[in-house]
């Protein structure tokens, strides 16, 4: 009598495709996934706790290190929350600069997504091309603030430095080349039948399930729910710009991929409008040297490339925050892993993990 039984496979934390140090405990029946449990915490640095011992200004570099491929968006979210708490008005020009940089960083982050998805599916060349193009965005940021990954560019009260004409040229050139870059990815990956067969119809996540799990960002929109904070809870100067929110239908891997690819061109649209309409004026508001926000608390969110980045800041009236809690979108999106993997094959686990697009710095915080 042949008896079969399930077995446990520990995928990670040292594994070529877990995007950092994520461990997934898979229960497998042959190659079929019965259960998958993401185990987090291998990259925990206690950033929330570290922030309690630092002044509001000093917390900023730590937000860079949460979601390190879209540090601008984290800076943005943190500064937005603190400014709201301390009731600081930001000059219009700084708002525009923030939007431009956040959207550029969104493009860079989605390029990473395309690249890491490609390499997880096995198309190594599909990884190199987006990474090569992302390099140009990093060059722009390097020119702008002197760092390629941890920018600390968006500051409480404004931004760090103004756009020079050289940087404007670089951005314009990048935007002009962007359609041909996207064509290249589409020709190499999107149009590839093997790629399509791998993504279409796998790892379904219905809109209802996504909403219940609190999933946000492109992953939620891929499931067909129109929820984008840039439109639905507009902040900064996003209401000045025309852009659409791409939506998926089925919530499968393919939709999650295609939504992000479309978002790249939407972000480019925003940047173009912002560059054209950039007003004159100051880039920083008057902020006291020692910032002591009034006693109270605030929860403020912005739309990061992975979803809703939220900062819950409790102030006791001193120069240091009493408590900061960060809503990290990757962490919450990763909760969908079991739904995405159950009943599919080991090869699909890797793809599902890629299309969730978690950044472990953010998951473990």
């Amino acid at each position, binding site marked *: 009598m042949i008896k079969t039984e399930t077995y446990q496979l520990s995928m990670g934390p040292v594994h070529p495709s877990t995007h950092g140090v994520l461990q997934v405990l898979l229960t497998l029946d042959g190659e079929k996934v019965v259960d998958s449990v993401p185990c987090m915490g291998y990259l925990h640095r206690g950033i929330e706790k570290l922030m309690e011992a630092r002044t509001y200004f000093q917390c900023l*570099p730590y937000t860079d290190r949460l979601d390190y491929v879209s540090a601008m968006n984290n800076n943005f979210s943190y500064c937005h929350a603190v400014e709201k708490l301390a009731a600081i008005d930001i000059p219009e020009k700084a708002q525009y600069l923030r939007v431009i940089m956040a959207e550029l960083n969104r493009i860079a982050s989605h390029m990473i997504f395309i690249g890491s998805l490609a390499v997880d599916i096995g198309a190594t060349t599909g990884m190199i091309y987006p990474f090569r193009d992302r390099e140009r965005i990093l060059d722009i940021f390097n020119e702008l603030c*002197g760092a390629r990954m941890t920018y600390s560019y968006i500051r409480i009260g404004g931004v760090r430095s103004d756009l020079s004409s050289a940087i404007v040229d670089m951005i314009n050139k990048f935007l002009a080349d962007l359609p041909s870059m996207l064509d290249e990815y589409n020709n190499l990956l999107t149009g590839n039948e093997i790629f399509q067969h791998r993504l279409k119809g796998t790892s379904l996540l219905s809109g209802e399930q996504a909403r219940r799990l609190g999933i946000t960002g492109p992953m939620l929109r891929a499931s067909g729910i129109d929820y984008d904070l840039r439109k639905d809870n507009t902040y900064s100067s996003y209401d000045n710009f025309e852009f659409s929110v791409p939506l998926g239908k089925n919530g499968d891997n393919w939709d999650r991929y295609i939504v992000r690819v479309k978002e790249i061109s939407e972000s480019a649209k925003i940047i173009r409008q912002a560059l054209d309409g950039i007003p004159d004026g100051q880039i920083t508001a008057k902020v006291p040297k020692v910032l002591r926000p009034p006693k109270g608390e605030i929860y403020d969110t912005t739309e990061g490339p992975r979803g809703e980045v939220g900062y819950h800041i409790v102030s006791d009236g001193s120069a240091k925050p009493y408590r900061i809690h960060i809503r990290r979108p990757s962490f919450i999106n990763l909760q969908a892993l079991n739904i995405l993997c159950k009943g599919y094959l080991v090869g699909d686990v890797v793809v599902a993990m890629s299309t969730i697009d978690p950044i472990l710095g953010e998951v473990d915080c």
Partner: protein
Amino acid sequence: MQGKGLLIGLSVTLRHFFSRKETVQYPEEKLVMNDLFRGGRLILNEKKCISCKLCAMACPNEALALTVEIDEQKKRHMKKYVHKSGRCLYCNFCVEACPTKAITWDKNYEIACYHIEELTYDAVKRNKEDENNEY
């Protein structure tokens, strides 16, 4: 038609096979860092420095350990300016906090080293060594 996408993909890679390459041949050609680049070691201009310790106060991670000496004329002198680059976040807050623009980055990105002790250095001592080397 199945297979068309595969052929288009092959044409893309073949085009790149013959196209210009992006690699910078590192040890021979080196990139020049821009003015705002944050990285490398801190250079302290002792003539400008007023020993106010604002840089150390701005540092989020206590990477700067300064020792200030007050001489007979009640003038403050920087005796030690220890930068623990292992702790440094390279956030540039110290450079921005300086009221006299006395500290700058040396923009050297070849700072890998074999021993952990080499990460910590004294900028004042380095200045003295440089002076000695000049004479």
